[in-house]
C-alpha cells in the first residue's frame, strides 16, 4: 500500500474515534455509537476513490474513463466474435514471433558473460584473408612476442584444443580437451566451484599434469561427484590429477570436457610447438590494460604484427595477407549467430507489420460499419478526443488480448529459436524465457493499439453530420476504400519479401542436397576409431588396424572395409588449410606461390569402399609400407594443374612445409583419383594428396560399406573391435549421408524457420486480401445491383472483383521487390554474405503469392456474381 493510503486509513480511524467518543458521551451505548458513527461516515471506498482523484488528478480521470471505455469496447467486441478472434490471433502471431526472437537476440547478443570483468575481456584473432580463412590461431613464438611488445593488453591467456583418449572417468573414450597456460583462467576471469584451477605454478616442463573439469562434464557425466577431486586420470600417454571444477561458463572456443595444463599434451612440449613460428594452434585471450580501449589494443597489435611480418617474412607469406584483430569476447562468441539472428529479427518485424496492417484493415472495415454510431455520439457532443478514446480503448482490448496470447505463444517459440541459434553460437544454449518477453509483448501491443486507434477516420466536425446520422449504415467512401487497399497491398508487399527470402533459402538447400559429392553416401558407414594412445608403437597400432579391417570384412553384410584419417565434412579443417608442395617438372609462374594440397592417409581399398573412381594408375597395397618406396595418389584436379598434358603418373612430388623435416621427401605418384571435396558443403575444386596408411601411419577413421541397413552393423563392429582391444573407443557411427545431413542442419533449419515466417505472412496476407475484397463486395451490393440492372453480366462482376484482387497483388509484388532490394541494401552493411534471391526464386515467390491471392479473391468474386439483382437494389 502506498503511504498516502495508509495515512488516509489512520485519518479515517482518528475521525471515527472522535465521533464514537462524542456519541458515547451523549449517552449512546458503545456498540450503537460505533454503528452510527460508521453509518454517518459514509461509504469508505467512495471516499478512497475521491482521494485518488485528488492525489493523481487528471491522469486518474483519464484512466478511469479509459477503463470504462474498455468495458464498453469488450462488450461490443464480444458481439463481433469472428472479427475479434481474427484480430487477436493475427496480433498474437506478430507479437509472439517478435517477443521470442527478441528474447534470443538479447540472450545471445546483448547479455554480458559471467566472466569477471567481462567488459575488459578480449579475444585476439589472426586471420589470413589471402588463404580464405578467418582464423589461423597463433604460434608460441608469436604469443611470446605479443607478451613482450604489447602494452594495451596487460595479460594474455592461451588456449588450444587437443583430442585425448581419456581413461579413468567412466568408459574410455576420446574427448576434446583444452590445454591452457597458467594465466588463462585469471585472464578470462573464471572461478572454480570446487578445488582450484590451473595456475602459473602448473607451468613448465617439470610441472605435474593437472586437469580441471568443465561444469557441464562434471554435472552431466559425473553426477556432480565431489570425490572426483584428487583422482588420477590417463590422458593419452600422460597422467594428470583432477584438481578442480570450473564454474558454469560459455565454452569458447571449444566445448571441452576437461582443461589441462601444458604438460598433459606431449605435443605442446615438443620443439615444433615451442619454436616454430608457423606452427599455429593456440587461441589467444587478453585483458585490456586499465584505461585502454579495444581500439587502442587493435591499433597497437596491428603495429606489432606489422613489425613481426617484416622481421620474419618467411612466416607471413605475402599472398596470405595475414592480419590480427581484437574483439570483445562477448561479440566474438556471438558473431556467428549475429547475421542470422538479425535477419530473423527483421523477418519477425516484417511479420509484425503485416499483422498490424491486416488488423488495421479489419478495424477500418469495422469502423466504417459503425460510422453511424460515431456520428451520433459526435452530434450528442462527444469531443474528438472522446471518440478517439473509444477507438483506443477498443484497440487496447484487442491488442492486450493479442499480447497475452502472443506471449503464451512465444514461450515455446523461445526454446525452438534458441536451439536453432545454438547451431551458430553456444551462448544460445543458456537462453531462457524471462520477463523481457513480457516487456516486448506489452510494448508491441501498445504500439499496435495506438497505431490502430488512429487508423479510422472520425466524423469530421466541418462536414455536416446529417449523412451518417440519417443513414446509420455502411457508406464506403473512396478514401476508406483506398486505405483498405493500401493496407492489403502492404501485406502483399511484405509477404513477398519474406517469400522471396524463403524460396532463396529453400532453393539453395535443395541445390546443396542434390549435389553429387563423389562418394557412395548411403551404403558407407563412417566410424571414429581413434588411434590408441596406449599402443606400444605406431607399427603395433597399424597391425591392430589391419586386424580390425580383416575381422570386420568377415562379418555378414559387409561389402568392404577401409581405414582413413578424416571423416568427410565432420572433420573439415582438421589438417588446416592445406600444405604447400612442389613437384618435379613443375615451376610456379613468377611471383606465384607454391600450391597447397590437402593431406589424407588412406588404407588400401579406401577408394573402392567409398566409391571414388580410380582414373589412372593403381590403388595402394599392403606392400606400400615403411621402408618401401614412398608413393602417393593424387586427385585429378592436382594432376591436371601440375601436368596439363596428362603425364602425372610416375612423376614425383614433395611437401615443402618444415613440419615434414628439413629435407623434402620425394614421393612417386602411382595413381589418380576423381576429385572429392570432403570439407565444404558445396564442393569446390580441391587438390588432395593421398598417402598410404602403412607408410605415413595416420589413421583413426573406419569406413564400412554395407549391404542393407548399415546401422545394423554398428553393434557387431564394436564387438569385433573391442574384442581385439578392450579400451579402444568406437564412436559416432553414421552413414556419410547422415554425416552430411548433420553438417547441413543449420542450412536446413534456416530454411525451415524462414519458411515458417513466410508461411505465416502468406496466410495473413491472403486473409487480408480476401477480407478487403469481401468487404468491398458487401459494401457495394447496391452498386452491383445497379450494374446488373443496366446490363452488366455476372461474369463481368466476377472478373471485376478478380481483377481488383490481381491489382492489389501485382502492386504489392512490385513494391515488395523495390522494398526488398532497398532493405537488402541496408541490411548488407550489417550482415555480410547476404544472398540475393535469384530470378527463379523471385518468380516462384510471386507465383505462390498470385495463386494464393487469386484463390482468396475467388470467394468474394463468386458472391458478387451470384447477386440477385432485385435484392441487391433493395439493400440499405
Amino acid at each position: 500500500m502506498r503511504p498516502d493510503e495508509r495515512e488516509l486509513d489512520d485519518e479515517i480511524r482518528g475521525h471515527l474515534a472522535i465521533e464514537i467518543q462524542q456519541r458515547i458521551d451523549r449517552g449512546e451505548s458503545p456498540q450503537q455509537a460505533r454503528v452510527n458513527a460508521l453509518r454517518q461516515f459514509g461509504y469508505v471506498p467512495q471516499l478512497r476513490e475521491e482521494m485518488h482523484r485528488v492525489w493523481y488528478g487528471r491522469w486518474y480521470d483519464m484512466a478511469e474513463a479509459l477503463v470504462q471505455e474498455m468495458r464498453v469496447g469488450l462488450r461490443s467486441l464480444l458481439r463481433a466474435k469472428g472479427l475479434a478472434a481474427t484480430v487477436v490471433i493475427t496480433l498474437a502471431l506478430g507479437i509472439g514471433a517478435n517477443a521470442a526472437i527478441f528474447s534470443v537476440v538479447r540472450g545471445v547478443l546483448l547479455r554480458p558473460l559471467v566472466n569477471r570483468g567481462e567488459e575488459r575481456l578480449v579475444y585476439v584473432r589472426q586471420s589470413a584473408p589471402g588463404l580464405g580463412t578467418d582464423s589461423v590461431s597463433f604460434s608460441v613464438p608469436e604469443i611470446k612476442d605479443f607478451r613482450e611488445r604489447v602494452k594495451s593488453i596487460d595479460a594474455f591467456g592461451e588456449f588450444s584444443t587437443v583430442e585425448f583418449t581419456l581413461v579413468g572417468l567412466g568408459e574410455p573414450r576420446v574427448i576434446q580437451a583444452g590445454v591452457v597456460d597458467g594465466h588463462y583462467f585469471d585472464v578470462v576471469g573464471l572461478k572454480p566451484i570446487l578445488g582450484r584451477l590451473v595456475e602459473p605454478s602448473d607451468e613448465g616442463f617439470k610441472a605435474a599434469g593437472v586437469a580441471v573439469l568443465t561444469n557441464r562434464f562434471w554435472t552431466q557425466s559425473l553426477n556432480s561427484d565431489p570425490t572426483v577431486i584428487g583422482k588420477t586420470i590417463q590422458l593419452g600417454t600422460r597422467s594428470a590429477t583432477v584438481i578442480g571444477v570450473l564454474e558454469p561458463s560459455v565454452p569458447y572456443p571449444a566445448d571441452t570436457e576437461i582443461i589441462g595444463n601444458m604438460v598433459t599434451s606431449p605435443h605442446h612440449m615438443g620443439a615444433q610447438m615451442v619454436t616454430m613460428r608457423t606452427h599455429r594452434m593456440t587461441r589467444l585471450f587478453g585483458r585490456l590494460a586499465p584505461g585502454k580501449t579495444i581500439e587502442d589494443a587493435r591499433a597497437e597489435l596491428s603495429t606489432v604484427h606489422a613489425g613481426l611480418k617484416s622481421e620474419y617474412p618467411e612466416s607471413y607469406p605475402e599472398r596470405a595477407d595475414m592480419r590480427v584483430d581484437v574483439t570483445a569476447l562477448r561479440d566474438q562468441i556471438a558473431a556467428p549467430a549475429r547475421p542470422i539472428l538479425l535477419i530473423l529479427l527483421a523477418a519477425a518485424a516484417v511479420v509484425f507489420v503485416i499483422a498490424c496492417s491486416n488488423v488495421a484493415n479489419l478495424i477500418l472495415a469495422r469502423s466504417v460499419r459503425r460510422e453511424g454510431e460515431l456520428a451520433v455520439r459526435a452530434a450528442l457532443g462527444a469531443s474528438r478526443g472522446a471518440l478517439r478514446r473509444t477507438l483506443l480503448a477498443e484497440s487496447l482490448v484487442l491488442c492486450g488480448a493479442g499480447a497475452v496470447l502472443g506471449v503464451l505463444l512465444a514461450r515455446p517459440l523461445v526454446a525452438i529459436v534458441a536451439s536453432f541459434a545454438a547451431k551458430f553460437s553456444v551462448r544460445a544454449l543458456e537462453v531462457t524465457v524471462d520477463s523481457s518477453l513480457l516487456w516486448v509483448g506489452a510494448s508491441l501491443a501498445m504500439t499496435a493499439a495506438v497505431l490502430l486507434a488512429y487508423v479510422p477516420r472520425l466524423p469530421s466536425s466541418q462536414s455536416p453530420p446529417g449523412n451518417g446520422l440519417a443513414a446509420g449504415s455502411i457508406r464506403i467512401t473512396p478514401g476508406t476504400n483506398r486505405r483498405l487497399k493500401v493496407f492489403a497491398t502492404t501485406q502483399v508487399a511484405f509477404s513477398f519479401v519474406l517469400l522471396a527470402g524463403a524460396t532463396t533459402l529453400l532453393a539453395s538447400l535443395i541445390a546443396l542436397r542434390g549435389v553429387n559429392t563423389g562418394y557412395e553416401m548411403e551404403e558407407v558407414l563412417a566410424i571414429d576409431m581413434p588411434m590408441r594412445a596406449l599402443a606400444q608403437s605406431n607399427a603395433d597400432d597399424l597391425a591392430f588396424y589391419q586386424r580390425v579391417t580383416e575381422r570386420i570384412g568377415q562379418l555378414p553384410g559387409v561389402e568392404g572395409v577401409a581405414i582413413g584419417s578424416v571423416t568427410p565434412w565432420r572433420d573439415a579443417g582438421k589438417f588446416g588449410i592445406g600444405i604447400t608442395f612442389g613437384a618435379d617438372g613443375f615451376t610456379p609462374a613468377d611471383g606465384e606461390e607454391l600450391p597447397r594440397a590437402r593431406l589424407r592417409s588412406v588404407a588400401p581399398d579406401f577408394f573402392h569402399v567409398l566409391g571414388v573412381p580410380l582414373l589412372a594408375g593403381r590403388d595402394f597395397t599392403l606392400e606400400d609400407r615403411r621402408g618401401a618406396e614412398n608413393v602417393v595418389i593424387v586427385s585429378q584436379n592436382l594432376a591436371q594443374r601440375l601436368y596439363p598434358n596428362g603425364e602425372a603418373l610416375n612423376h614425383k612430388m614433395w611437401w615443402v612445409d618444415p613440419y615434414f623435416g628439413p629435407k623434402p621427401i620425394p614421393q612417386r605418384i602411382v595413381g589418380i583419383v576423381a576429385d572429392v571435396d570432403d570439407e565444404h558443403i558445396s564442393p569446390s575444386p580441391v587438390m588432395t594428396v593421398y598417402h598410404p596408411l602403412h607408410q605415413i601411419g595416420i589413421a583413426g577413421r573406419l569406413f564400412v560399406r554395407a549391404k542393407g541397413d548399415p546401422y545394423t552393423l554398428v553393434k557387431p563392429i564394436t564387438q569385433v573391435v573391442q574384442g581385439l582391444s578392450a579400451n579402444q573407443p568406437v564412436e559416432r557411427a553414421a552413414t556419410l549421408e547422415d554425416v552430411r545431413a548433420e553438417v547441413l542442419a543449420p542450412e536446413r533449419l534456416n530454411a525451415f524457420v524462414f519458411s515458417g515466417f513466410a508461411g505465416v505472412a502468406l496466410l495473413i496476407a491472403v486473409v487480408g486480401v480476401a477480407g478487403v475484397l469481401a468487404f468491398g463486395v458487401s459494401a457495394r451490393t447496391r452498386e452491383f445491383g445497379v450494374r446488373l440492372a443496366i446490363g452488366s453480366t455476372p461474369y463481368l462482376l466476377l472478373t471485376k472483383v478478380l481483377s481488383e484482387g490481381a491489382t492489389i497483388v501485382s502492386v504489392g509484388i512490385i513494391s515488395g521487390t523495390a522494398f526488398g532490394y532497398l532493405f537488402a541494401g541496408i541490411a548488407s552493411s550489417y550482415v555480410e554474405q547476404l544472398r540475393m534471391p535469384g530470378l527463379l526464386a523471385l518468380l516462384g515467390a510471386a507465383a505462390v503469392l498470385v495463386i494464393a491471392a487469386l484463390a482468396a479473391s475467388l470467394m468474394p468474386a463468386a458472391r458478387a456474381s451470384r447477386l440477385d439483382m432485385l435484392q441487391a437494389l433493395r439493400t440499405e
Partner: protein
Amino acid sequence: MPKNPEPERLELLQGTLDMLILRTLQWGAQHGHGIGQAISSQSDDLLKVETGSLYPALHRLEKRGWLKSEWGISEANHKAKYYQLTAAGKAQLSRERDRWTQLVGVIGKIMNPAAE
C-alpha cells in the same frame, strides 16, 4: 452517488467548502472531524459537510500548499491529523473572502434591486 439530504439542510454552494475550511482553520490547527463539526455548529446545523467531500477537500488544499498537516493525539486519545493554515493559505482566504463578498453583493443587487 445517491444523495439523500435531510430536507431542512442547505446545500453548500459549489466552491464554497474550500473557503469555509480555510476560514475555520483561522483560529488554529484542527483535525478533520473538528473542522466538519465547527462548520455545522457555526451554521446552526443548517450546513452539513459530508466526510466524502471534506477529506478530499482537505487533501486538495494541502496539495496546493494552502494547508499543512501534522499528526497529533485527539481528545478521543487517538491519532489524528491536524491541519493548519500556511501563509499562502491565509492569502488565499483573504482573496476568497473578497470574491465572496463581491459575489454576494452582486447577486444581492440583482435579487433585491429595491434594497439599494
